[in-house]
Protein backbone atom coordinates (compact mmCIF):
# COMPACT_ATOMS: atom_id res chain seq x y z
CA UNK A 1 0.00 0.00 0.00
CA UNK A 2 1.33 3.47 -0.98
CA UNK A 3 1.85 5.93 1.82
CA UNK A 4 0.62 9.34 0.61
CA UNK A 5 3.18 12.14 0.55
CA UNK A 6 2.71 14.63 3.36
CA UNK A 7 1.42 17.93 2.06
CA UNK A 8 1.83 19.68 5.42
CA UNK A 9 4.66 19.11 7.87
CA UNK A 10 4.63 21.04 11.12
CA UNK A 11 7.64 20.83 13.42
CA UNK A 12 7.90 22.26 16.94
CA UNK A 13 5.46 25.04 16.15
CA UNK A 14 4.80 27.54 18.91
CA UNK A 15 2.76 30.70 19.01
CA UNK A 16 2.89 33.03 21.95
CA UNK A 17 0.71 36.14 22.11
CA UNK A 18 1.63 39.10 24.24
CA UNK A 19 -1.41 40.57 25.97
CA UNK A 20 0.02 43.53 27.81
CA UNK A 21 2.60 42.11 30.17
CA UNK A 22 1.05 38.66 30.09
CA UNK A 23 2.18 36.10 27.54
CA UNK A 24 -0.39 33.62 26.32
CA UNK A 25 0.78 30.41 24.70
CA UNK A 26 -1.63 29.56 21.88
CA UNK A 27 0.45 26.71 20.46
CA UNK A 28 3.15 24.83 22.29
CA UNK A 29 5.70 22.81 20.31
CA UNK A 30 3.17 21.25 17.92
CA UNK A 31 4.42 18.71 15.41
CA UNK A 32 2.25 16.89 12.88
CA UNK A 33 2.04 15.81 9.28
CA UNK A 34 -0.97 15.88 7.02
CA UNK A 35 -1.06 13.64 4.00
CA UNK A 36 -2.19 14.78 0.56
CA UNK A 37 -5.89 14.05 0.06
CA UNK A 38 -6.68 13.89 3.78
CA UNK A 39 -9.78 15.52 5.27
CA UNK A 40 -8.36 16.47 8.64
CA UNK A 41 -10.55 17.95 11.33
CA UNK A 42 -9.07 20.03 14.13
CA UNK A 43 -11.12 19.86 17.29
CA UNK A 44 -10.87 21.31 20.71
CA UNK A 45 -12.47 23.79 23.08
CA UNK A 46 -12.39 27.56 22.50
CA UNK A 47 -8.92 28.95 22.96
CA UNK A 48 -7.26 25.57 22.40
CA UNK A 49 -5.25 26.94 19.47
CA UNK A 50 -6.96 25.06 16.61
CA UNK A 51 -7.75 28.20 14.58
CA UNK A 52 -4.26 29.56 15.22
CA UNK A 53 -2.76 26.33 13.88
CA UNK A 54 -5.03 26.49 10.83
CA UNK A 55 -4.07 30.13 10.17
CA UNK A 56 -0.36 29.39 10.39
CA UNK A 57 -0.63 26.41 8.01
CA UNK A 58 -2.62 28.63 5.60
CA UNK A 59 -0.04 31.42 5.73
CA UNK A 60 -2.34 33.94 7.36
CA UNK A 61 -0.57 34.08 10.71
CA UNK A 62 3.06 33.63 11.73
CA UNK A 63 4.39 31.34 14.48
CA UNK A 64 6.70 32.50 17.22
CA UNK A 65 8.98 29.53 16.49
CA UNK A 66 9.04 26.28 14.56
CA UNK A 67 8.63 25.20 10.95
CA UNK A 68 5.57 24.81 8.79
CA UNK A 69 6.23 23.19 5.43
CA UNK A 70 3.38 23.16 2.95
CA UNK A 71 4.18 21.34 -0.30
CA UNK A 72 7.83 21.70 0.63
CA UNK A 73 7.68 25.46 1.18
CA UNK A 74 8.38 26.79 4.67
CA UNK A 75 5.64 29.40 4.84
CA UNK A 76 7.16 30.91 7.98
CA UNK A 77 10.07 32.15 5.87
CA UNK A 78 8.00 33.99 3.24
CA UNK A 79 7.65 37.75 3.39
CA UNK A 80 4.30 39.55 3.27
CA UNK A 81 4.09 39.83 -0.54
CA UNK A 82 5.35 36.28 -1.12
CA UNK A 83 2.79 34.99 1.34
CA UNK A 84 -0.02 36.87 -0.45
CA UNK A 85 0.97 35.26 -3.77
CA UNK A 86 1.46 31.87 -2.14
CA UNK A 87 -1.97 31.93 -0.48
CA UNK A 88 -3.58 32.88 -3.79
CA UNK A 89 -1.96 30.00 -5.64
CA UNK A 90 -2.00 27.25 -3.03
CA UNK A 91 -4.77 27.67 -0.49
CA UNK A 92 -8.55 27.91 -0.66
CA UNK A 93 -10.28 29.51 2.32
CA UNK A 94 -13.74 28.84 3.75
CA UNK A 95 -14.84 30.96 6.71
CA UNK A 96 -17.53 30.53 9.33
CA UNK A 97 -19.14 33.85 8.31
CA UNK A 98 -18.72 33.16 4.57
CA UNK A 99 -16.84 36.49 4.10
CA UNK A 100 -18.30 37.22 0.68
CA UNK A 101 -17.94 40.76 -0.65
CA UNK A 102 -21.45 42.19 -0.31
CA UNK A 103 -21.29 44.50 -3.36
CA UNK A 104 -20.17 41.76 -5.73
CA UNK A 105 -22.34 39.03 -7.25
CA UNK A 106 -21.73 35.34 -6.65
CA UNK A 107 -19.89 35.18 -9.98
CA UNK A 108 -17.74 38.20 -9.17
CA UNK A 109 -16.95 36.90 -5.68
CA UNK A 110 -15.78 33.58 -7.08
CA UNK A 111 -13.80 35.34 -9.79
CA UNK A 112 -11.84 37.49 -7.28
CA UNK A 113 -8.88 35.10 -6.70
CA UNK A 114 -8.57 34.57 -10.45
CA UNK A 115 -8.04 38.31 -10.99
CA UNK A 116 -4.63 37.80 -9.44
CA UNK A 117 -3.68 35.21 -12.06
CA UNK A 118 -2.74 35.72 -15.70
CA UNK A 119 -5.91 34.08 -17.00
CA UNK A 120 -7.93 35.93 -19.62
CA UNK A 121 -11.54 36.84 -19.00
CA UNK A 122 -12.92 33.96 -21.11
CA UNK A 123 -10.87 31.38 -19.20
CA UNK A 124 -11.82 33.00 -15.91
CA UNK A 125 -15.48 32.83 -16.89
CA UNK A 126 -15.18 29.12 -17.75
CA UNK A 127 -13.52 28.31 -14.44
CA UNK A 128 -15.99 30.33 -12.38
CA UNK A 129 -18.95 28.74 -14.12
CA UNK A 130 -17.45 25.29 -13.62
CA UNK A 131 -17.02 25.68 -9.84
CA UNK A 132 -20.40 27.33 -9.41
CA UNK A 133 -21.85 24.37 -11.25
CA UNK A 134 -19.90 22.04 -8.96
CA UNK A 135 -21.48 23.61 -5.87
CA UNK A 136 -24.91 23.65 -7.55
CA UNK A 137 -25.30 27.40 -7.90
CA UNK A 138 -25.17 27.97 -11.66
CA UNK A 139 -28.58 29.59 -11.48
CA UNK A 140 -27.52 32.02 -8.75
CA UNK A 141 -24.32 33.37 -10.24
CA UNK A 142 -25.67 36.91 -10.75
CA UNK A 143 -27.20 37.16 -7.31
CA UNK A 144 -25.69 39.37 -4.63
CA UNK A 145 -24.83 37.65 -1.32
CA UNK A 146 -27.84 39.25 0.40
CA UNK A 147 -30.08 37.52 -2.15
CA UNK A 148 -28.78 34.08 -1.14
CA UNK A 149 -29.50 31.82 1.83
CA UNK A 150 -26.75 31.08 4.35
CA UNK A 151 -26.13 27.64 2.84
CA UNK A 152 -25.92 29.13 -0.66
CA UNK A 153 -23.52 31.83 0.55
CA UNK A 154 -21.26 29.19 2.04
CA UNK A 155 -21.36 27.19 -1.19
CA UNK A 156 -20.32 30.35 -3.08
CA UNK A 157 -17.46 30.68 -0.59
CA UNK A 158 -16.45 27.06 -1.26
CA UNK A 159 -16.57 27.79 -5.00
CA UNK A 160 -14.30 30.79 -4.41
CA UNK A 161 -11.92 28.54 -2.43
CA UNK A 162 -11.78 26.03 -5.28
CA UNK A 163 -11.62 28.29 -8.30
CA UNK A 164 -7.83 28.51 -8.40
CA UNK A 165 -7.65 24.70 -8.03
CA UNK A 166 -5.52 24.78 -4.85
CA UNK A 167 -4.10 21.60 -3.33
CA UNK A 168 -5.06 22.74 0.15
CA UNK A 169 -8.48 23.91 1.37
CA UNK A 170 -8.82 25.28 4.89
CA UNK A 171 -12.18 25.76 6.55
CA UNK A 172 -12.67 27.52 9.87
CA UNK A 173 -15.95 26.38 11.43
CA UNK A 174 -17.67 26.35 8.03
CA UNK A 175 -20.99 25.13 9.42
CA UNK A 176 -21.05 27.38 12.47
CA UNK A 177 -23.60 29.74 10.95
CA UNK A 178 -25.71 27.20 9.08
CA UNK A 179 -28.84 25.23 9.82
CA UNK A 180 -28.35 21.46 10.05
CA UNK A 181 -29.51 20.72 6.52
CA UNK A 182 -27.23 23.32 4.93
CA UNK A 183 -24.42 22.14 7.20
CA UNK A 184 -24.83 18.58 5.92
CA UNK A 185 -24.66 19.83 2.32
CA UNK A 186 -21.53 21.87 2.95
CA UNK A 187 -19.79 19.05 4.81
CA UNK A 188 -20.68 16.63 2.05
CA UNK A 189 -19.21 19.04 -0.45
CA UNK A 190 -15.98 19.39 1.54
CA UNK A 191 -15.77 15.64 1.93
CA UNK A 192 -16.08 15.18 -1.83
CA UNK A 193 -13.09 17.46 -2.30
CA UNK A 194 -10.66 15.29 -0.38
CA UNK A 195 -10.12 11.74 -1.53
CA UNK A 196 -12.23 11.78 -4.69
CA UNK A 197 -10.92 15.14 -5.91
CA UNK A 198 -7.44 14.78 -4.43
CA UNK A 199 -7.48 17.94 -2.36
CA UNK A 200 -6.35 18.18 1.23
CA UNK A 201 -9.00 19.70 3.48
CA UNK A 202 -8.26 20.96 6.99
CA UNK A 203 -11.35 21.92 8.93
CA UNK A 204 -11.68 23.46 12.37
CA UNK A 205 -14.88 22.49 14.15
CA UNK A 206 -16.45 22.17 17.58
CA UNK A 207 -19.05 19.77 16.33
CA UNK A 208 -18.29 16.01 16.60
CA UNK A 209 -20.94 15.31 13.93
CA UNK A 210 -19.11 17.62 11.55
CA UNK A 211 -15.79 16.04 12.49
CA UNK A 212 -17.23 12.66 11.52
CA UNK A 213 -17.10 13.73 7.88
CA UNK A 214 -13.29 13.92 8.09
CA UNK A 215 -10.87 11.12 7.43
CA UNK A 216 -8.85 11.95 10.55
CA UNK A 217 -9.41 14.08 13.56
CA UNK A 218 -6.91 15.63 15.92
CA UNK A 219 -7.62 17.38 19.23
CA UNK A 220 -5.93 20.34 20.74
CA UNK A 221 -6.14 21.56 24.29
CA UNK A 222 -4.26 24.52 25.72
CA UNK A 223 -2.11 24.69 22.62
CA UNK A 224 -1.04 21.07 22.64
CA UNK A 225 -2.10 18.00 20.69
CA UNK A 226 -3.93 15.61 22.97
CA UNK A 227 -4.70 12.78 20.53
Amino acid at each position, binding site marked *: MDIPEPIVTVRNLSKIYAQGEIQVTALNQISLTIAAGEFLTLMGPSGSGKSTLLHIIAGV*DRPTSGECLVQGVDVTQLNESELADWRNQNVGFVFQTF*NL*IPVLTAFENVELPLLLTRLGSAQRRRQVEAVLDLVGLSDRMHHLPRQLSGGQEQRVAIARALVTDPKLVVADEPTGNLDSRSAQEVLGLLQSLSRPAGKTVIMVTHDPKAAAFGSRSIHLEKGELTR
Partner: protein
Amino acid sequence: MALPLRYSFRNALVRWRSTSATVLGIALVVFVFVLLQSLAAGIERSSGNTGDPRNLLVVRKGSTAESASLIARQNFQDLRYLPEIARNPQGEPLMAADVLVLVNLPRRQGAGEANVLLRGVTPRGMELRPQVRLAAGRWFEPGHREVVVSAKLARRFEHFDIGQSFRSGSATLTVVGWLEGGGSAFDSECWLDADECRSLFERDMYSSFLIRPRDAAAGEQLMARIEADRRFKLKAEREVDYYRKQTMTAAPIKWLGNFLAVTMSIGAVFAAMNTMYAAVGSRTREIGTLRVLGFRRRSVVLALLLEGGFLALIGGALGCAVAFYWNGYTTATMGFETFSEIVFEFRITPRLVAEGLLFAVMVGLAGTFLPALRAARLPVIAALKSL
Protein backbone atom coordinates in the same frame (compact mmCIF):
# COMPACT_ATOMS: atom_id res chain seq x y z
CA MET B 1 -3.24 43.27 -9.71
CA ALA B 2 -5.78 45.85 -8.62
CA LEU B 3 -9.24 45.08 -7.35
CA PRO B 4 -11.90 45.52 -10.03
CA LEU B 5 -13.16 49.09 -10.46
CA ARG B 6 -16.73 47.95 -9.85
CA TYR B 7 -15.71 47.02 -6.30
CA SER B 8 -14.79 50.65 -5.55
CA PHE B 9 -17.71 52.17 -7.45
CA ARG B 10 -20.35 49.92 -5.92
CA ASN B 11 -18.96 50.44 -2.43
CA ALA B 12 -19.09 54.19 -2.95
CA LEU B 13 -22.69 54.01 -4.10
CA VAL B 14 -23.98 51.36 -1.72
CA ARG B 15 -23.51 53.64 1.28
CA TRP B 16 -25.10 56.65 -0.39
CA ARG B 17 -26.79 57.87 2.78
CA SER B 18 -23.57 58.15 4.74
CA THR B 19 -21.58 59.41 1.79
CA SER B 20 -24.08 62.03 0.62
CA ALA B 21 -22.87 64.52 3.24
CA THR B 22 -19.33 64.15 1.93
CA VAL B 23 -20.48 64.45 -1.66
CA LEU B 24 -22.47 67.59 -0.83
CA GLY B 25 -19.54 69.07 1.09
CA ILE B 26 -17.20 68.59 -1.83
CA ALA B 27 -19.90 69.87 -4.21
CA LEU B 28 -20.15 73.08 -2.18
CA VAL B 29 -16.38 73.61 -2.25
CA VAL B 30 -16.21 73.03 -5.99
CA PHE B 31 -19.26 75.25 -6.56
CA VAL B 32 -17.64 78.19 -4.74
CA PHE B 33 -14.32 77.58 -6.46
CA VAL B 34 -15.80 77.35 -9.97
CA LEU B 35 -18.21 80.25 -9.51
CA LEU B 36 -15.56 82.66 -8.22
CA GLN B 37 -13.08 81.60 -10.88
CA SER B 38 -15.81 82.03 -13.50
CA LEU B 39 -16.27 85.62 -12.30
CA ALA B 40 -12.57 86.24 -12.79
CA ALA B 41 -12.69 84.47 -16.16
CA GLY B 42 -15.61 86.70 -17.20
CA ILE B 43 -13.70 89.85 -16.30
CA GLU B 44 -10.57 88.60 -18.06
CA ARG B 45 -12.57 87.66 -21.11
CA SER B 46 -14.16 91.09 -21.22
CA SER B 47 -10.74 92.76 -21.22
CA GLY B 48 -9.10 90.15 -23.41
CA ASN B 49 -11.87 90.46 -25.97
CA THR B 50 -11.37 94.18 -26.45
CA GLY B 51 -9.57 96.02 -29.21
CA ASP B 52 -8.26 95.48 -32.70
CA PRO B 53 -4.82 93.89 -33.08
CA ARG B 54 -3.99 96.44 -35.77
CA ASN B 55 -4.57 99.46 -33.51
CA LEU B 56 -2.16 101.26 -31.21
CA LEU B 57 -3.37 102.93 -28.04
CA VAL B 58 -1.46 105.98 -26.84
CA VAL B 59 -1.62 107.18 -23.23
CA ARG B 60 0.53 109.44 -21.10
CA LYS B 61 3.74 107.84 -19.82
CA GLY B 62 3.25 106.50 -16.30
CA SER B 63 -0.53 106.10 -16.69
CA THR B 64 -1.80 102.65 -15.90
CA ALA B 65 -5.19 103.28 -17.48
CA GLU B 66 -6.77 105.53 -20.08
CA SER B 67 -8.99 107.12 -17.45
CA ALA B 68 -5.91 108.30 -15.53
CA SER B 69 -4.16 109.67 -18.61
CA LEU B 70 -4.08 113.29 -19.72
CA ILE B 71 -2.67 114.30 -23.12
CA ALA B 72 -2.34 117.82 -24.44
CA ARG B 73 -4.52 118.56 -27.47
CA GLN B 74 -1.45 119.80 -29.34
CA ASN B 75 -0.06 116.26 -29.28
CA PHE B 76 -2.96 115.16 -31.44
CA GLN B 77 -1.90 117.55 -34.18
CA ASP B 78 1.78 116.63 -33.72
CA LEU B 79 1.13 112.95 -34.25
CA ARG B 80 -1.71 112.99 -36.72
CA TYR B 81 0.31 113.44 -39.89
CA LEU B 82 3.14 111.06 -39.10
CA PRO B 83 3.89 108.88 -42.13
CA GLU B 84 3.42 105.58 -40.25
CA ILE B 85 -0.31 106.26 -39.77
CA ALA B 86 -2.75 104.71 -42.26
CA ARG B 87 -5.34 106.83 -44.03
CA ASN B 88 -8.92 106.13 -44.95
CA PRO B 89 -10.23 106.37 -48.58
CA GLN B 90 -10.87 110.06 -48.01
CA GLY B 91 -7.18 110.52 -47.22
CA GLU B 92 -7.73 111.31 -43.54
CA PRO B 93 -5.32 109.81 -41.00
CA LEU B 94 -6.85 106.93 -39.03
CA MET B 95 -6.26 108.47 -35.63
CA ALA B 96 -8.82 109.19 -32.95
CA ALA B 97 -8.67 111.14 -29.70
CA ASP B 98 -10.85 110.03 -26.79
CA VAL B 99 -11.91 111.81 -23.64
CA LEU B 100 -12.83 109.65 -20.67
CA VAL B 101 -14.97 110.97 -17.85
CA LEU B 102 -16.36 109.19 -14.81
CA VAL B 103 -19.86 110.16 -13.74
CA ASN B 104 -21.81 108.96 -10.74
CA LEU B 105 -25.28 107.76 -11.64
CA PRO B 106 -28.15 106.02 -9.83
CA ARG B 107 -28.73 102.32 -10.38
CA ARG B 108 -32.17 100.97 -11.14
CA GLN B 109 -34.54 99.98 -8.32
CA GLY B 110 -32.81 102.24 -5.82
CA ALA B 111 -29.74 100.03 -5.61
CA GLY B 112 -27.45 102.96 -4.85
CA GLU B 113 -25.13 104.78 -7.19
CA ALA B 114 -22.10 103.75 -9.18
CA ASN B 115 -19.53 105.29 -11.46
CA VAL B 116 -20.10 105.00 -15.18
CA LEU B 117 -17.42 105.59 -17.78
CA LEU B 118 -18.31 108.12 -20.48
CA ARG B 119 -16.13 108.00 -23.58
CA GLY B 120 -16.05 111.00 -25.83
CA VAL B 121 -15.22 109.68 -29.29
CA THR B 122 -14.55 111.18 -32.68
CA PRO B 123 -15.90 109.70 -35.97
CA ARG B 124 -12.49 108.04 -36.53
CA GLY B 125 -12.78 106.46 -33.09
CA MET B 126 -15.93 104.66 -34.12
CA GLU B 127 -14.34 103.64 -37.41
CA LEU B 128 -11.38 102.13 -35.54
CA ARG B 129 -13.65 100.09 -33.23
CA PRO B 130 -15.85 98.06 -35.56
CA GLN B 131 -16.67 95.57 -32.77
CA VAL B 132 -18.93 98.22 -31.24
CA ARG B 133 -22.27 98.33 -33.01
CA LEU B 134 -25.57 100.04 -32.49
CA ALA B 135 -28.08 97.70 -30.82
CA ALA B 136 -31.05 100.08 -30.74
CA GLY B 137 -31.91 103.74 -31.47
CA ARG B 138 -29.35 105.83 -33.33
CA TRP B 139 -25.83 107.17 -32.88
CA PHE B 140 -25.34 110.59 -31.24
CA GLU B 141 -24.97 113.64 -33.44
CA PRO B 142 -21.86 115.82 -33.00
CA GLY B 143 -22.69 119.09 -31.31
CA HIS B 144 -25.68 117.63 -29.51
CA ARG B 145 -25.89 116.57 -25.89
CA GLU B 146 -26.67 113.02 -26.81
CA VAL B 147 -25.27 109.75 -25.55
CA VAL B 148 -25.37 106.12 -26.64
CA VAL B 149 -25.22 103.84 -23.63
CA SER B 150 -24.23 100.18 -23.41
CA ALA B 151 -27.28 97.95 -23.65
CA LYS B 152 -25.95 95.94 -20.71
CA LEU B 153 -25.53 99.08 -18.58
CA ALA B 154 -29.00 100.19 -19.62
CA ARG B 155 -30.45 97.25 -17.72
CA ARG B 156 -28.63 98.37 -14.57
CA PHE B 157 -28.95 102.17 -14.48
CA GLU B 158 -31.87 104.55 -14.14
CA HIS B 159 -32.73 106.86 -17.07
CA PHE B 160 -30.80 104.73 -19.58
CA ASP B 161 -33.83 103.88 -21.68
CA ILE B 162 -33.84 105.45 -25.13
CA GLY B 163 -35.36 108.89 -25.00
CA GLN B 164 -34.65 109.41 -21.29
CA SER B 165 -32.22 112.00 -19.98
CA PHE B 166 -29.89 112.03 -17.01
CA ARG B 167 -27.95 114.76 -15.27
CA SER B 168 -24.35 114.73 -14.22
CA GLY B 169 -23.16 117.95 -12.61
CA SER B 170 -24.46 120.74 -14.75
CA ALA B 171 -24.80 118.53 -17.82
CA THR B 172 -27.97 116.85 -19.03
CA LEU B 173 -27.53 114.11 -21.59
CA THR B 174 -30.24 112.40 -23.60
CA VAL B 175 -29.98 108.70 -24.38
CA VAL B 176 -30.51 108.21 -28.13
CA GLY B 177 -29.26 104.65 -28.56
CA TRP B 178 -27.85 101.49 -27.06
CA LEU B 179 -24.52 100.05 -28.10
CA GLU B 180 -23.36 96.48 -28.09
CA GLY B 181 -19.65 95.84 -27.41
CA GLY B 182 -19.59 92.15 -28.34
CA GLY B 183 -18.57 91.03 -24.84
CA SER B 184 -15.74 93.58 -24.70
CA ALA B 185 -14.88 96.29 -22.18
CA PHE B 186 -16.92 98.70 -24.33
CA ASP B 187 -20.04 97.00 -22.95
CA SER B 188 -19.30 98.96 -19.76
CA GLU B 189 -19.17 102.40 -21.46
CA CYS B 190 -21.39 105.20 -22.70
CA TRP B 191 -20.29 107.01 -25.84
CA LEU B 192 -20.83 110.60 -26.86
CA ASP B 193 -19.20 113.14 -29.11
CA ALA B 194 -15.62 113.91 -27.98
CA ASP B 195 -15.87 117.70 -28.39
CA GLU B 196 -19.22 117.75 -26.63
CA CYS B 197 -17.73 115.69 -23.82
CA ARG B 198 -14.77 118.05 -23.40
CA SER B 199 -17.07 121.02 -23.42
CA LEU B 200 -19.62 119.58 -20.98
CA PHE B 201 -17.08 118.39 -18.48
CA GLU B 202 -14.59 121.25 -19.05
CA ARG B 203 -11.75 119.02 -20.11
CA ASP B 204 -8.98 120.72 -22.00
CA MET B 205 -7.06 117.54 -22.58
CA TYR B 206 -7.59 114.17 -24.18
CA SER B 207 -7.26 110.86 -22.37
CA SER B 208 -5.93 108.67 -25.16
CA PHE B 209 -5.29 108.37 -28.86
CA LEU B 210 -6.17 105.39 -30.99
CA ILE B 211 -4.07 104.94 -34.11
CA ARG B 212 -4.18 102.50 -37.02
CA PRO B 213 -0.63 102.21 -38.46
CA ARG B 214 -0.15 101.38 -42.14
CA ASP B 215 1.12 97.93 -41.30
CA ALA B 216 2.83 95.95 -38.53
CA ALA B 217 6.30 97.31 -39.37
CA ALA B 218 4.99 100.87 -39.39
CA GLY B 219 3.34 100.13 -36.05
CA GLU B 220 6.68 99.09 -34.55
CA GLN B 221 8.34 102.21 -35.92
CA LEU B 222 5.57 104.42 -34.59
CA MET B 223 5.73 102.90 -31.11
CA ALA B 224 9.51 103.44 -31.08
CA ARG B 225 9.14 107.00 -32.38
CA ILE B 226 6.53 107.97 -29.77
CA GLU B 227 8.56 106.36 -27.03
CA ALA B 228 11.74 108.12 -28.05
CA ASP B 229 10.33 111.62 -28.71
CA ARG B 230 10.81 113.61 -25.50
CA ARG B 231 8.27 116.25 -26.55
CA PHE B 232 5.38 113.89 -26.10
CA LYS B 233 5.93 111.98 -22.84
CA LEU B 234 3.60 109.37 -24.28
CA LYS B 235 3.67 105.63 -24.62
CA ALA B 236 2.08 103.56 -27.33
CA GLU B 237 1.21 99.88 -27.27
CA ARG B 238 -1.03 97.55 -29.17
CA GLU B 239 -4.65 98.13 -28.16
CA VAL B 240 -5.20 94.42 -27.50
CA ASP B 241 -2.11 94.29 -25.26
CA TYR B 242 -3.32 97.29 -23.30
CA TYR B 243 -6.71 95.67 -22.60
CA ARG B 244 -5.19 92.30 -21.86
CA LYS B 245 -3.28 93.95 -19.02
CA GLN B 246 -6.44 95.53 -17.63
CA THR B 247 -7.29 92.46 -15.58
CA MET B 248 -6.33 93.82 -12.19
CA THR B 249 -9.97 93.55 -11.10
CA ALA B 250 -9.91 89.80 -11.68
CA ALA B 251 -6.87 89.24 -9.44
CA PRO B 252 -8.52 89.71 -6.02
CA ILE B 253 -11.54 87.67 -7.12
CA LYS B 254 -9.22 84.87 -8.21
CA TRP B 255 -7.36 85.15 -4.92
CA LEU B 256 -10.61 85.06 -2.96
CA GLY B 257 -11.75 82.05 -4.98
CA ASN B 258 -8.56 80.18 -4.25
CA PHE B 259 -8.56 81.21 -0.59
CA LEU B 260 -12.16 80.14 -0.01
CA ALA B 261 -11.63 76.94 -1.94
CA VAL B 262 -8.55 76.01 0.09
CA THR B 263 -10.21 76.93 3.40
CA MET B 264 -13.40 75.05 2.62
CA SER B 265 -11.50 72.13 1.16
CA ILE B 266 -9.86 71.52 4.55
CA GLY B 267 -13.33 70.90 5.95
CA ALA B 268 -14.21 68.75 2.95
CA VAL B 269 -11.03 66.70 3.41
CA PHE B 270 -12.03 65.95 7.00
CA ALA B 271 -15.55 65.04 5.88
CA ALA B 272 -14.14 62.67 3.28
CA MET B 273 -11.73 61.29 5.87
CA ASN B 274 -14.59 60.69 8.29
CA THR B 275 -16.61 58.90 5.63
CA MET B 276 -13.72 56.73 4.57
CA TYR B 277 -12.68 55.90 8.16
CA ALA B 278 -16.27 54.75 8.68
CA ALA B 279 -16.10 52.78 5.43
CA VAL B 280 -12.86 51.11 6.46
CA GLY B 281 -14.22 50.46 9.96
CA SER B 282 -17.34 48.76 8.68
CA ARG B 283 -15.42 46.70 6.13
CA THR B 284 -12.46 45.56 8.19
CA ARG B 285 -13.28 41.86 7.80
CA GLU B 286 -13.93 42.34 4.10
CA ILE B 287 -10.50 43.94 3.73
CA GLY B 288 -9.01 41.06 5.71
CA THR B 289 -10.71 38.60 3.35
CA LEU B 290 -9.29 40.34 0.30
CA ARG B 291 -5.82 40.15 1.82
CA VAL B 292 -6.30 36.44 2.59
CA LEU B 293 -7.32 35.83 -1.01
CA GLY B 294 -3.99 37.26 -2.11
CA PHE B 295 -4.65 40.96 -2.75
CA ARG B 296 -1.71 43.02 -1.60
CA ARG B 297 -1.76 46.09 0.62
CA ARG B 298 -1.33 48.42 -2.33
CA SER B 299 -4.39 46.91 -4.05
CA VAL B 300 -6.49 47.66 -0.97
CA VAL B 301 -5.08 51.22 -0.76
CA LEU B 302 -5.75 51.77 -4.45
CA ALA B 303 -9.32 50.44 -4.21
CA LEU B 304 -10.11 52.75 -1.30
CA LEU B 305 -8.45 55.74 -2.99
CA LEU B 306 -10.55 55.04 -6.08
CA GLU B 307 -13.64 54.87 -3.93
CA GLY B 308 -12.84 58.22 -2.28
CA GLY B 309 -11.86 59.74 -5.61
CA PHE B 310 -15.08 58.53 -7.19
CA LEU B 311 -17.18 60.03 -4.39
CA ALA B 312 -15.31 63.31 -4.78
CA LEU B 313 -15.80 63.22 -8.53
CA ILE B 314 -19.56 62.94 -8.04
CA GLY B 315 -19.37 65.89 -5.63
CA GLY B 316 -17.24 67.84 -8.10
CA ALA B 317 -19.61 67.14 -10.97
CA LEU B 318 -22.53 68.24 -8.82
CA GLY B 319 -20.73 71.47 -7.83
CA CYS B 320 -19.88 72.22 -11.47
CA ALA B 321 -23.44 71.47 -12.58
CA VAL B 322 -24.90 73.88 -10.02
CA ALA B 323 -22.31 76.54 -10.90
CA PHE B 324 -23.13 76.06 -14.60
CA TYR B 325 -26.59 77.45 -13.89
CA TRP B 326 -24.92 80.88 -13.73
CA ASN B 327 -22.98 80.47 -16.95
CA GLY B 328 -23.59 83.51 -19.14
CA TYR B 329 -25.34 85.42 -16.34
CA THR B 330 -24.46 89.11 -16.63
CA THR B 331 -23.36 90.98 -13.56
CA ALA B 332 -21.16 93.94 -12.73
CA THR B 333 -18.53 95.04 -10.30
CA MET B 334 -16.33 98.07 -9.80
CA GLY B 335 -13.27 97.90 -12.01
CA PHE B 336 -10.06 98.71 -10.19
CA GLU B 337 -8.53 100.20 -13.33
CA THR B 338 -11.23 102.77 -14.04
CA PHE B 339 -13.15 102.78 -10.74
CA SER B 340 -16.31 102.46 -12.82
CA GLU B 341 -18.98 99.80 -13.10
CA ILE B 342 -17.78 97.03 -15.39
CA VAL B 343 -20.25 94.59 -16.84
CA PHE B 344 -19.27 91.00 -17.54
CA GLU B 345 -20.66 87.49 -17.75
CA PHE B 346 -19.93 84.44 -15.60
CA ARG B 347 -17.85 82.23 -17.87
CA ILE B 348 -17.79 78.54 -16.87
CA THR B 349 -15.19 77.36 -19.34
CA PRO B 350 -14.28 73.69 -20.00
CA ARG B 351 -10.93 74.42 -18.38
CA LEU B 352 -12.66 75.67 -15.22
CA VAL B 353 -14.84 72.55 -15.10
CA ALA B 354 -11.73 70.38 -15.50
CA GLU B 355 -9.98 72.34 -12.73
CA GLY B 356 -13.04 71.98 -10.50
CA LEU B 357 -13.19 68.22 -11.04
CA LEU B 358 -9.46 67.86 -10.50
CA PHE B 359 -9.73 69.90 -7.31
CA ALA B 360 -12.58 67.67 -6.12
CA VAL B 361 -10.62 64.50 -6.79
CA MET B 362 -7.61 65.90 -4.94
CA VAL B 363 -9.82 66.67 -1.93
CA GLY B 364 -11.24 63.14 -2.10
CA LEU B 365 -7.84 61.51 -2.36
CA ALA B 366 -6.45 63.62 0.48
CA GLY B 367 -9.37 62.60 2.68
CA THR B 368 -9.07 58.93 1.76
CA PHE B 369 -5.34 58.52 2.03
CA LEU B 370 -5.04 58.03 5.81
CA PRO B 371 -8.05 55.69 6.14
CA ALA B 372 -6.73 53.66 3.19
CA LEU B 373 -3.32 53.45 4.81
CA ARG B 374 -4.92 52.31 8.04
CA ALA B 375 -6.83 49.60 6.20
CA ALA B 376 -3.69 48.39 4.47
CA ARG B 377 -1.75 48.23 7.72
CA LEU B 378 -4.34 46.09 9.48
CA PRO B 379 -2.85 42.70 10.31
CA VAL B 380 -4.76 40.12 8.24
CA ILE B 381 -5.61 37.94 11.20
CA ALA B 382 -6.90 40.92 13.24
CA ALA B 383 -8.97 42.09 10.28
CA LEU B 384 -10.52 38.64 9.87
CA LYS B 385 -11.48 38.48 13.54
CA SER B 386 -13.17 41.86 13.56
CA LEU B 387 -16.94 41.89 13.89
